[in-house]
């Protein structure tokens, strides 16, 4: 039965992975919903550019994202230094940086899922709510948001799963520090670099698969439950 209990090292990596992913998704969700709405409902010059910018992390190598974050938000970065001096906030080489890297890489998946769902919402319903006396903000929170809940759930789970698997941007931006930024994939990578680490790497591999599967199944069940509720 000893094989089924997690070693302290594994517990730490798993806990850190979940913690960082939760923060990555929670932090980017409000901005993601806002941008999804802007892309789904507004027309303005530069929309294609904004769309491209949001999708960029999907096609760029994560290492590039990590390096850009390092240049921008590192201790001596263009934004990182003033941010640290003004507010004492730093993303360099800590879990917050890892969460930020994960959030950026997972962001396109989050926005895309919510946007598609928002585009599917009948704008006639929003118009009807307006004629019933609801202002744009009320319409957004009482009609649009409830109707895109399935898309929001899908987006959250996709982004969460992507965050759990984040490797390249994280290791480039915040390095591989045990207990701070060494998430499951980084711990796995570390073990593969040590002689005799194969068994441990395999265990982490299995843990990763289980966590990812659980997340996907949870998403499926939740989405189905919400969808059936919407259908009455």
């Amino acid at each position, binding site marked *: 039965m000893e094989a089924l209990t997690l070693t302290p090292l594994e517990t730490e990596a798993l806990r850190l992975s979940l913690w960082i992913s939760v923060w990555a998704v929670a932090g980017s969700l409000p901005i993601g919903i806002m941008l999804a709405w802007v892309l789904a409902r507004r027309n303005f010059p530069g929309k294609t550019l904004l769309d491209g910018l949001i999708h960029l992390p999907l096609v760029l190598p994560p290492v590039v994202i990590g390096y850009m974050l390092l240049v921008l938000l590192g201790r001596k970065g263009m934004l990182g230094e003033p941010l640290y001096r003004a507010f004492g906030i730093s993303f360099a080489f800590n879990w917050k940086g890892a969460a930020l890297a994960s959030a950026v890489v997972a962001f396109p998946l989050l926005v895309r899922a919510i946007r598609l769902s928002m585009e599917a919402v*009948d704008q*006639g*319903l929003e*118009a*009807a*709510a*307006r*004629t*019933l*006396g*609801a*202002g744009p903000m*009320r319409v957004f929170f*009482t*009609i649009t948001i*409830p*109707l895109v809940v399935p898309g929001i759930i899908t987006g959250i789970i996709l982004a969460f799963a992507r965050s759990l698997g984040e490797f390249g941007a994280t290791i480039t931006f915040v390095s591989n520090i045990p207990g701070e930024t060494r998430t499951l994939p980084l711990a796995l990578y570390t073990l593969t670099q040590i002689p005799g680490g194969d068994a441990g790497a395999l265990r982490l591999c299995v843990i990763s698969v289980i966590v990812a599967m659980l997340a996907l199944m949870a998403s499926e069940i939740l989405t189905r439950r919400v969808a059936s*509720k*919407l*259908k*009455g």
Partner: protein
Amino acid sequence: MLEIKVKKRLGGFTVDVAFSTGVAGVTALFGRSGAGKTSVINMVAGLIVPDEGLIAVNGTKLFDSKQSIDVPPEKRRCGYVFQDGRLFPHLTVKSNLVYGMNLVPRAQRYVSYDQVVDLLGIGHLLARRPAKLSGGEKQRVAIGRALLTSPSVMLMDEPLASLDIERKGEVLPFIARLPRELSIPILYVSHSLDEILNLAEMVVLLDAGKVVATGAVKDLMSRFKRM
């Protein structure tokens, strides 16, 4: 009383109409599909902005291009019944009904929830969701939802068009009762002569975005027959 005099270019054709309704009772907007009927009531509701013109209900201006008045739809107090109902699928019938009502100050309400539920015979549907309603039931709930905002004008866009004959017979009597129960103007869009003869006192005849004739239903009867 509803006064309207608006111009709006929509794609290839221009809606250019002017007419006014009585203080109460049903005025039918009658014409072929594509004559611009829905565009006209969308302009009254504030869902389409006219290029120029004036829209006023009981002397209150909702839109006036000269004075740059454009009251947003949520402040116009138009009770709009859409052709496809547009009930909110995530809310129960009851929540749909009170969605607009709760946004109207008590002092401005002239119909009560119980009255409307009773008038439309929808008391047994309150706990259901729209997906579980028949077409006729949906339209009755949609009428109730609009009515409960205590509107100063009712706009009805072919509320019976998506229903089969049996369902039409189920909803029509309820609509026929509205003018007797409420003293507000009702603008009723239709391309069905039957409905108009049953419901309307006045007719505005539209063709290709222009008003071809206006008058009492009886007087225009002979013209309808030829359409």
